[in-house]
């Protein structure tokens, strides 16, 4: 809106990406690859969700995996209740409950007989949790590093509780032996085209929807909060509500991604709420570009893709972790706005040829921007 030209470039990029992932199955219709890329695209959704709260609003949520994991469990619970009877105990009790001497299905499992409830729970529970935690943090004016530590602590606690409450959660093994999700007469088998499209469609909606939100005034205010929270407050905006909106929305998207992940992986596990995964999300987002939803999504796909391929090559079997670690450090040091900033620099160079006076997008090339501002100030 401020600069229709740069907006057009961005929109082109987003749409192009969506088209690519949607036509992908026509190029490579292969069970294994569909499943593999569906998994990567889910990470893309997760990473884009983090970019919304971190890159746009400045809330570094190190516990993003909480929402992801809870969403995943909600879906797994619904699917577990639909497994063929022999794998469950008497009266349709999930097998792990039988082994833990649970006699009747616990009350909070009951509603998961309904898919509708499960889907709402997968979205709603992470959002509710985020909302409560967010209310607690943002009303208390907790920012920056402390948000990071509190969300991380939350993650550790919830993970501990899930592993501990084996009777109800399947403990360390998670919830396994699931049936296939069916909705509107379509089966969503892990390797199927339908699942791939569900995932790819979600990513498109998240990216384009997210882009639309960031272009509203709300989106502007969120970015303003990231730049200078106090300044925004003195304009009469209730900063905490805005932060909580971003935090909760991001949690909801992550929860949805978690549900999809259960479909693609065919189980739910406490490792979906691990510190490891949660920090990985942050890394994807940073590598791709935290200030761009598309950048963050691409970062996730790229990093997990490179990671998968590096670890599959016999040469790097032992050293792939070293290489990944080094890449993270290099990106953080030299490309604070991620790989997408390279692309945006390229676009800007192109534009500069035609129109010198054209402006840049705010978050776009902050690297250049800060550099320039330094020069301006010194002169």
């Amino acid at each position: 809106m401020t600069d229709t030209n740069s907006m057009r470039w961005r929109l082109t990029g987003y749409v192009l990406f969506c088209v690519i992932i949607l036509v992908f199955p026509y190029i490579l219709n292969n069970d294994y690859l569909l499943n593999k890329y569906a998994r990567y695209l889910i990470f893309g959704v997760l990473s884009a969700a983090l970019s919304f709260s971190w890159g746009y609003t400045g809330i570094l949520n190190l516990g993003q995996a909480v929402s992801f994991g809870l969403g995943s469990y909600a879906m797994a619970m619904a699917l577990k209740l639909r497994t063929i009877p022999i794998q469950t105990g008497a009266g349709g009790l999930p097998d792990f409950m039988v082994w833990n001497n649970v006699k009747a299905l616990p009350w909070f499992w009951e509603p998961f007989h309904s898919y509708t409830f499960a889907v709402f729970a997968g979205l709603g529970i992470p959002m509710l949790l985020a909302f409560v935690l967010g209310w607690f943090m943002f009303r208390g004016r907790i920012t920056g590093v402390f948000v990071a530590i509190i969300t991380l602590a939350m993650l550790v606690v919830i993970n501990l509780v899930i592993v501990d409450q084996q009777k109800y959660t399947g403990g360390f093994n998670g919830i396994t032996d699931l049936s296939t999700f069916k909705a509107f007469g379509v089966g969503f088998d892990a390797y199927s085209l339908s699942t791939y499209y569900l995932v790819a469609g979600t990513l498109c909606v998240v990216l384009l929807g997210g882009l639309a939100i960031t272009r509203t005034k709300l989106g502007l205010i969120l970015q303003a909060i990231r730049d200078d929270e106090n300044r925004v407050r003195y304009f009469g905006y209730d900063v905490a509500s805005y932060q909580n909106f971003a935090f909760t929305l991001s949690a909801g998207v992550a929860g949805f991604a978690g549900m999809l992940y259960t479909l693609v992986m065919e189980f739910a596990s406490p490792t979906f709420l691990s510190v490891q995964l949660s920090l990985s999300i942050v890394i994807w987002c940073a590598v791709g570009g935290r200030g761009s939803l598309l950048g963050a999504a691409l970062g996730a796909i790229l990093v997990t893709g490179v990671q998968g391929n590096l670890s599959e090559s016999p040469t790097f079997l032992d050293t792939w972790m070293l290489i990944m670690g080094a890449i993270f450090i290099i990106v953080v040091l030299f490309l604070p706005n991620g790989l997408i900033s390279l692309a945006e620099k390229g676009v800007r160079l192109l534009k500069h040829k035609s129109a010198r006076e054209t402006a840049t997008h705010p978050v776009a090339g902050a690297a250049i921007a800060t550099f320039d501002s330094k020069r301006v100030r010194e002169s």
Partner: protein
Amino acid sequence: MAMLEMRDVEVSFSGFRAIAGLNLSVNQGELRCLVGPNGAGKTTALDVICGKTRLARGHVRYRDREIGNSEEFRIARLGVGRKFQVPSVFKELTVRENLRVGLCKPHGVFSNLVGRKSGESAERLEALACLVGLADELDHPASWLSHGQTQWLEIALLLAQNADLILMDEPTAGMTGAETHKTAELFNQLKGKHTLMVVEHDMGFVREIGDVISVMHQGRMLAEGAISEIERNPEVKRAYLGSGRISDA
């Protein structure tokens, strides 16, 4: 009736009393300058009004409403705007986007999600940019601006906010002589429509704009009056003894 009343206000930081029994009242449409030596509690006084700092005792009344210890955004919604000593704008947003954030009605989360921008606000926004001389910079990120320009942008933000009471903390710091003069002109235009409270060290500037000057010292009000009265006041002279004449402060 005064627009802003401060009565027996006390603020302390870990035992140190930054403001000790401050009384101050400002009328609608007035331009009040707040001066005083370093550590007199000027900035803290502004902080108390806009809700940044909690007061230990006393009352702050704005348009007959108690606003002491209210949340900042609630005070701001009543029509109080604040400019900081260190210019604070949104560095990664463009000037235009900065101003859009400044045009702050409505305040709610969801109305800003669905609300559409109106042509009227776009015009107003460009007019504001012209007023502060940033028309050419509208689509540049705020981080490209020079220090003086950043000051101007923040002032423009306050104008966009359309606050009734504007609190300014050293608005001319870092400005050239010409820029300072331009600021003074602007303030004189605002006078009457808005109520301004300006903390300032630059006495030249104060002379250009000030009707009534309040002098603070050690957390309380030392003197109040026109500039000529203040400059003759012996108590003020004594308070400034450490730093020479008042104009050097």
